[in-house]
């Protein structure tokens, strides 16, 4: 059963852990769900909200980095002034990058399509 002591019911006030896990019991969690770690949005993977994903077309890209500047979720990763990759763990699939790309180097593809292709590849193997 519960291991908290009746003498200290100031639950959660001592918890400053970065590692809030989804299996934590009510008396292990921080009081009122307060979060003590700055920049914690990174640990919340919003990528699974996505229904369409941006797909980069290397041949067309002119590395203007409009997409990098416009992405509201910092999900375009650039390196040495060049497009590097999408961060699919956080990209919500809003499509802004595809819209602003001056050379149509980004296609928005349905996640269902991506799944189907993955399945098909699996069958072949």
């Amino acid at each position, binding site marked *: 059963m519960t291991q908290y002591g009746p003498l200290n*019911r100031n639950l959660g006030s001592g918890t400053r852990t970065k590692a809030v896990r*989804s299996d934590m019991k009510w*008396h292990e969690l921080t009081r*009122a*769900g*307060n979060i*003590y*770690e700055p920049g914690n949005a990174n640990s919340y993977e919003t990528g699974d909200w996505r229904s369409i994903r941006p797909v980069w077309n290397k041949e067309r890209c002119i590395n203007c980095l409009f997409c990098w500047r416009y992405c509201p979720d910092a999900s375009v990763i650039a390196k040495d002034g060049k497009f590097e990759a999408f961060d699919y763990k956080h990209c919500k699939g809003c499509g802004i990058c595809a819209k602003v790309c001056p050379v149509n180097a980004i296609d928005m593809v349905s996640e269902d399509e991506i799944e189907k292709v993955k399945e098909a590849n699996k069958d072949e193997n």
Partner: protein
Amino acid sequence: MKTKVALTGNEAVAQAMKQINPDVVAAYPITPQTEIVQIFSSFVANGEVDTEFVAVESEHSAMSAAIGAAAGGARAMTATSSQGLALMFEVVYIAASMRLPIVFPVVNRALSGPINIHCDHSDAMGLRDSGVIQIFSENAQEAYDNMIQAVRIAEHPDVRLPVMVNMDGFITSHAMDVLEVLDDETVKNFVGTYVPDDYLLDAQNPISMGNFDMYDFYFEHKRQQVEAMKAAKEIIKEVGREFAKISGREYGLIEAYKLDDADVAVVVLNSAAGTAKGVADELRTKGIKAGVLKPRVYRPFPQEEIREALKAVKAVAVMDRAETFSTCGGPMFADIRNTLYDLKNDIKVVNYIYGLGGRDLRLEHVQQVFEDLENIRKTGRVDETVKYLGLRE
């Protein structure tokens, strides 16, 4: 040092707030509470307190501003009544779930409609499930004393919850009463300096409060609030004992008046408890063993104390100054009946709805209740479980 003074309930509460000297008070006027913040704002204007007074545009904003201030580590207060509390409704839940120790007097008044400005408890009862501690006050003295204790209860690290201090609109808020006030220094020492463990805008210790909480955590945080309410029962008693040392007046979760040998008892909140006690005294001279139970704290609900106090009584009348429209009686009736169920000793429990919209509760009304209880005790028969007192029918 204690001084006897004559003050209205509103003046007494404003006086307590002055002595507490909170960091922030955000409020909006509403009858019959207006005087509290009006008097308090004059203390601010005269430099008698250090409080930042925020004159907001609504009660929704008043509680929101208090939440912001409290989240920033300030000792924050507001005050309201009736429609004002109704407009605050949404934000009161947030104050409770964010575990912010905001103290706010509520001068109980009927809810519209029909529009009315007089006393009943429908405003407070609307927020009984919001997660705030609810303390009720029989008279100006108790309202003053409860305000001072509320600060310590709210801020206790095991509790950290808002506290609503109730008193009856006009009956207590506007009637002149004799009470004993403490000196400023004693109150200052009693409430102490508020040292929050967490607060916003501390660059060394960053924190996010009021976070989005989905199906995977919300439930657990609600359970934490229940635990804080459980802890509050102990802390309220502890603070009450400590308060006795500076005032000579001790407070617990309930007041049991002549219940030790009582056959019949009335359970009632706020000012009507004074009326009921007077009637019980009168009846005792006639050989009727009458008693009164006044819950001082309604949330958390003092179930064990009430069960213990009423276990030997034969018939109980719960008097509710609020309607639930369940057609099965008032809010406190359901709680008290539930409390006595486990005793399995066939205590008869009946309900009287009284005083809605400021309808007077007269001595004769309470006498009638006790007479009904005596009848029930003698015959063992309850004809009507829920009755209306002082209603033309």
